[in-house]
């Protein structure tokens, strides 16, 4: 590279002192960089460059990095002696085409004068000239055998000679720098991973403490935003698969400022290849649309329409099925999505997916509870259906009998009009009675609707007793109702409270009906209790031990072979929704007492 014939007149070989000083600097830097924290690497490199400038009497020392993905060349660190302007840390790819090519091939750039440069370096020479560089020494920086950048020394004030020893030592220095930078990158990558994990866990915490669906949507959108900013994406979208179809629809999205809202329909069939990949559980990522394989050609028009320049989209699976997808895209420039990002995006997706799945599960559970409540109500009805059917049969049978009698009376030569009138009046009364029964049945079967009104406890209880009366009689159980005088009215849902009493009575009848004893009695006692009222259902059955007693209000706990174990749990829920309490007292052999205490009107909270 150095042509002795064109040797510069002024240059002198470095003195032994210079070289020794350089060796010492190398030793110091090598030792010092080992213990550096990631954040101080940059400062340490810049400081090292300063010391080199001083030691070697050059005017500027630069560290240059080659970006692995983009191929750009950046000026990353620089030191300039006083009296000259500092170098801007920027891309220099276009300024030194020849030099970069040589460096990347592993060759140093060494010139003592600009006219030593070969003809093909014309563009580079022009740049150096523009910057006022008279002599330059640049050596490649190798890290783990790969060329990742270069160290450049420039002289502005004079042309100068670069001894061969200096070149080899500078290579060693470059290697020290390279290792420090690699360490820094590793640390940064670790830090960013931790930052990512922190973002994910923060979002998870926010999601788990958020109960309302609309709040949750906001948290998810905020999470998408944080992730997108972290990843440098301009669009972040959470997709939900449409049933078992290959298509996905957007559920949440974040767009960077100035990024246009993409048309919705383009997310459908138009990207069939991407959908198919995601549906099959594969990640799709491309730094540029040009990177897509030929079979994805049909997706290109839609991607162009969506403005997607680069994309990473990760499928989210639940129980082996792809149910959602999470995508990050850029629209202004192409960018690479390293494979290392995929597991993180999948992690984020899992968090979002699990929260959404929890929402879904919560919704299903709510539905199931409503169904179960209805089932209990209907089950209670089922237990008394025979009773009610019998109840309904009576007026209908009477009506039919009367109607036929009436027809016969009317056919007589001289109809007995008084008898006819009485017959018709009976028919009307019985039809009314049948209608009332049907209404009652309807009220019992109606689900979900809460109708609060002023209730006369006596009517409420008598209706329930009427319903279970037949069942109790059939099973040899005597029902006793005792209601204190002048009980105040209670505000509540008639059907719900009746359901509770019905449930307690039905349990009590079960408890005594299995007992082989003469006094099979269930008592219902209503009275005043503080500011409210109380209703007790007492049976003389076998009672319960403490262990059973402790669990009876738990859902799905039952001692009955065919029970669902929901009755008492739902009953307690209903009573508490009325601002009251439902408690049980029992001991083996002593029967059981269930006590409802209700305020006259539910508190605001409970209402």
């Amino acid at each position, binding site marked *: 590279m150095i042509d002795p014939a064109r040797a510069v007149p002024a240059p002198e070989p470095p003195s032994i002192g210079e070289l020794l000083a350089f060796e010492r600097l190398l030793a110091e830097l090598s030792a010092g960089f080992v213990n550096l924290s990631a954040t101080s690497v940059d400062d340490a490199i810049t400081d090292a460059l300063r010391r080199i400038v001083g030691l070697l009497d050059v005017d500027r020392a630069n560290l240059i990095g080659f970006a692995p993905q983009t191929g750009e060349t950046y000026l990353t660190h620089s030191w300039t002696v006083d009296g000259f302007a500092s170098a801007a840390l920027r891309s220099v790819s276009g300024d030194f085409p020849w030099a970069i090519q040589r460096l990347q091939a592993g060759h140093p750039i060494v010139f003592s004068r600009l006219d030593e440069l070969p003809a093909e370096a014309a563009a580079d020479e022009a740049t150096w000239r523009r910057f006022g560089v008279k002599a330059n020494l640049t050596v490649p920086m190798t890290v783990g055998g790969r060329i990742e950048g270069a160290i450049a020394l420039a002289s502005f004030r004079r042309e100068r000679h670069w001894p061969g020893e200096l070149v080899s030592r500078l290579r060693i220095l470059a290697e020290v720098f390279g290792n420090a930078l690699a360490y820094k990158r590793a640390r940064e990558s670790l830090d960013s991973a931790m930052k990512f994990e922190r973002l994910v866990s923060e979002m998870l915490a926010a999601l788990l403490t958020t109960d309302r669906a609309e709040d949750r949507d906001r948290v998810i959108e905020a999470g998408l935003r944080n992730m997108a900013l972290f990843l440098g994406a301009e669009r972040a979208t959470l997709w939900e698969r449409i049933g078992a179809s290959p298509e996905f629809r957007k559920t949440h999205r974040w767009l960077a400022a100035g990024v246009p809202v993409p048309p919705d329909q383009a997310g459908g069939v138009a990207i069939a290849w991407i959908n198919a990949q995601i549906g099959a559980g594969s990640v799709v990522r491309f730094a540029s649309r040009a990177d897509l394989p030929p079979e994805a050609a049909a997706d290109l028009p839609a991607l162009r329409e969506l403005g997607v320049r680069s994309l990473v989209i990760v499928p989210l699976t639940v129980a082996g099925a792809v149910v959602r997808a999470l995508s990050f895209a850029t629209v202004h420039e192409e960018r690479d999505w390293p494979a290392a990002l995929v597991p993180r995006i999948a992690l984020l997706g899992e968090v979002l997916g699990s929260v959404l799945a929890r929402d879904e599960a919560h919704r299903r559970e709510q539905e199931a509870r409503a169904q179960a409540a209805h089932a209990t109500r209907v089950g209670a009805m089922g237990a008394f259906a025979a009773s009610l059917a*019998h109840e309904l*049969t009576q*007026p209908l049978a009477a*009506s*039919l009998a009367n109607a036929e009698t009436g027809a*016969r009376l009317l056919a007589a030569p001289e109809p007995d009009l008084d008898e006819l009138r009485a017959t018709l009046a009976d028919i009307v009364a019985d039809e009314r009675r049948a209608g009332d029964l049907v209404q009652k049945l309807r009220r019992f079967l109606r689900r979900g609707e809460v109708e609060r009104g002023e209730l006369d406890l006596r009517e409420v209880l008598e209706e329930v007793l009427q319903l279970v009366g037949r069942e109790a009689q059939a099973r040899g159980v005597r029902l006793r109702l005792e209601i204190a005088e002048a009980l105040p009215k209670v505000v509540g849902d008639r059907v719900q409270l009746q359901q509770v009493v019905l449930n307690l009575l039905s349990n009590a009848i079960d408890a005594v009906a299995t007992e082989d004893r003469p006094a099979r009695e269930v008592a219902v006692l209503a009275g005043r209790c503080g500011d409210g009222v109380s209703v007790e259902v007492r049976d003389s059955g076998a009672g319960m031990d403490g262990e059973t007693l402790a669990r009876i209000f738990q859902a799905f706990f039952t001692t009955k072979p065919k029970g669902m174990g929901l009755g008492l749990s739902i009953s307690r829920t209903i009573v508490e929704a009325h601002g009251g309490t439902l408690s049980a007292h029992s001991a083996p052999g002593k029967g059981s007492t269930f006590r409802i205490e209700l305020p006259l009107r539910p508190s605001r909270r409970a209402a």
Partner: protein
Amino acid sequence: MTAPADAAGTVFVIDDDASVRRALERKLRTAGFRVETFESAQDYVARAPQAEIACILTDVRMPGMSGLDLQVSLAQAGRALPMVFITGHGDIPTTVRAMKGGAVDFLPKPSSEREILAAVAEALGRSAVIERERRELGSLRARYEALTAREREVLALVAAGLLNKVIGDRLGVAETTIKVHRGRVMEKMGAASLADLVRMSERLGLAPGADPARR
């Protein structure tokens, strides 16, 4: 429909439901039957109503004593009457039990007037037959009890198919004496023939050598 010709019978209606009770009472009364109503089986047992020709029309399922319980209870007390059961939910075991207990009919609830009246008429018809048989047996017993001890002996042996001579030997009297006894027995019992006399003795439950009057 017109009232049955022999509407002399009484229908005891038992139903715990007042409306049904009223409707059935009206139907049967206007159809020409005598009707008495009871609100429970216990009520019927307690009041122990009397009527020569009667039947019971009762609901099966009632609080307290059921229709079937009543059937058993009346049979044990020797006060059985033809019974028609009405039920809103008849099941096969209940039906079988009721029919074995001598139920005339088992009607669903509700039933048509035709079915109810037909079942009641049949039950009363059966009651009339039972009543007639009961009366016949009563008069037969009375006639039998009017016989002398010797005549009863002769009746038993004649009904057993023994010849006068054999009877005379067995009782140690002359054959002609037996002939006289036999003529008196035929006359007192109102028997038209020997075959008639044999049937009567069967109805009285006379086995050879037995004396129903002493049972």
